[in-house]
């Protein structure tokens, strides 16, 4: 059950080795979360993440492996996750995703299709599988890790940005579809965060580290707005960037 602050007692992370998502879960465990299910591709990564959470105070942490390249398994993954959690999940974090390298993706149809499947199709299928369970549960909260890269797709990471733009759009519509049931759905748009995933890449302006991102996201999860920007200043920054003429936008660095 979530309390008056929306603090969950049970959390499912789809994409259970995401550094940002795990740091968020750490904060939630310090508050009220006792049951955690981590689902992802990398079994050893999931196991060590689970151990770390147990050390931070989580009582019951389960891991599940699945391949986000195959959306036909989404229903089964959701079923297994709910079973592992004991039948009820307060908060689902969807942090499945590949960052990729656009230079390699440019001419590679298979890799491009894979990026879109993992980053957009699988999460959308998972959300569809979640919907009836949350409605019958009578309560629930879903937060999807999108990115500012989806606000206006850039040439430098166009496949990634496109998947985040699509995921965002899906999430916002999905949020409306669950609103009257009292189920909260939010999309999280982080800017550049220093993580293993972004190691070696040039930093963008308003870069944060994982702790700062996690703090902002945890605050956002308790708030009512559908979009959580991290850091919050990016909302204003992208309002401007979104409306720049193309001639100027294409000259922006990065």
């Amino acid at each position, binding site marked *: 059950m979530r309390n008056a602050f929306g603090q969950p007692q049970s959390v499912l992370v789809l994409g259970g080795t995401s550094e940002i998502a795990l740091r968020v879960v750490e904060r939630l465990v310090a508050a009220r979360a006792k049951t955690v299910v981590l689902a992802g591709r990398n079994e050893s990564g999931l196991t060590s993440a689970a151990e770390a959470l147990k050390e931070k105070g989580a009582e019951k942490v389960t891991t599940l492996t699945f391949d986000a390249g195959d959306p036909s398994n989404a229903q089964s993954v959701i079923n297994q996750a709910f079973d592992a959690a004991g039948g009820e999940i307060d908060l689902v974090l969807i942090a499945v995703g590949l960052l990729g390298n656009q230079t390699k993706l440019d001419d590679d149809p298979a890799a491009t299709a894979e990026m879109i499947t993992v980053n957009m199709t699988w999460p959308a299928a998972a959300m569809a599988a979640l919907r009836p369970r949350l409605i*019958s549960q009578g309560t629930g909260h879903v937060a999807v890790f999108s990115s500012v890269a989806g606000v206006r797709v850039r040439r430098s990471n166009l496949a990634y940005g496109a998947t985040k733009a699509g995921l965002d759009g899906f999430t916002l519509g999905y949020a409306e579809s669950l609103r009257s*049931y009292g189920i909260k759905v939010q999309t999280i748009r982080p800017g550049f965060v220093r993580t293993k995933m972004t190691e070696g890449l040039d930093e963008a302006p308003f870069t944060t580290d994982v702790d700062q991102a996690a703090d902002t996201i945890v605050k956002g999860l308790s708030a009512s707005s559908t979009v959580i920007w991290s850091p919050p200043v990016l909302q204003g920054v992208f309002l401007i960037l979104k409306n720049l003429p193309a001639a100027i936008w294409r000259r922006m660095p990065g």
Partner: protein
Amino acid sequence: MTLGHEELLAGWGNTAPSWATVDRPRSDLEVTDEFAEHNGSLIARGLGRSYGDAAQCAGGTVVSNRGLWHMSSIDPRSGLVEVGAGVSLDELLAVSIPAGWFVPVTPGTRQVTIGGAIAADIHGKNHHVDGSFMSHVTTMTLITPLGTIEVTPQNDPDLFWATAGGMGLTGIVTKATLKMVPIETSYVTVDTERFNDLDGIMNAMISGDDAYRFSVAWVDCMTTGPRMGRGVLTRGDHAPRSALSGKNEGRSLVPPPSTMLTVPFTPPSGLLNRLSIKAFNEAWYRKAPKRRDNEIQSLGTFFHPLDGVAWWNRLHGHRGFLQYQFVVDDAHGDIVRKAIEVLSGASVPSFLAVLKRFGPGNPGPLSFPMKGWTLALDIPIGPRQLAGVLDQLDVMVAEAGGRIYLAKDSRLSPELLRAMYPHLDKLEAIRRKIDPENLLASDLSRRLAI
């Protein structure tokens, strides 16, 4: 078979709503059917005045008691009246006051049902003299998954007291017999006194409360420094006819009026914030007389000031608000000051802080009152540090041997609950007997792992 509909339900604080099927049975038989027909969880609900998630059941069934409505006549010698669980105190008083009877215990609102009054074992401004609501209930009909039971404190004290303040977790009460209090008038004689600080109020309450039936202090939690906890103490008794004069004498038993004002929609969040609350508190403090004795106030004015504005909870906006109410024994009265200091230090604004004294508690394993001090605070949800600050207060209260009132709670953790209510295992043993399949559950019971 009652026709249910689905609804998003929340408590009075408008936080953490959940979706449930709502049924409204009209007889004991229909309530029995609820247990037979529903394979999910269920919990009863009255008028939804508990602040948190006590009367909601995500994914389950909420059984409204408002269809369980009847009122017997009031026995003129004993004052006993039998009422359906769905009868509200407002409805009962509308009929009883003109006949010269008052409820033995009333909270700050008349908009609670008899069933709710039992589930929360409500208290009022007279706990130090008259105890809680359940002290005045002589018998009740309780329907559990295993059957219908007439429960009295004599024939099954364990079940009776487990149901007192049991938050609906022992079954669904369909009716109860209550002992009313005879009154000569619908007025109260009131002594009001203003104090510059908390110590003044608390000392006055210790030294003088025994002389009054009713006593309550409003405390300003927004001032810091030496004036912290300044407030207004109001104490009184039912007014005898001889106390009335002139205009009141002719109509001495007048029921409280129906509400004139309402908040028809939810305004934007943030209306009630640090600045507006500080301003209100200043005005409220200044408006009170430094000292005024034997003032005649109507029952409605003295007992139920907020009932004058329907849906006042909407003023807190969509974000909602919460109530934090705790009790500590006399040896730990300093916790009252410490709690206000902690909130003040964390810049958490509290609108409406009320301080009362309690007399001894009852055997209910989940019943809230114990002899000592109780402080109740209304807090808007806004401040981000609020969750952590309240967790801190929980630890402070638990370490002092005190506890939180579950009828007001919307964010306590299961661990602190167990620390605060050491006899929880008694309730759990009773529930295992009368509800072996664990059908009775609310969002609150699931959140608190009861």
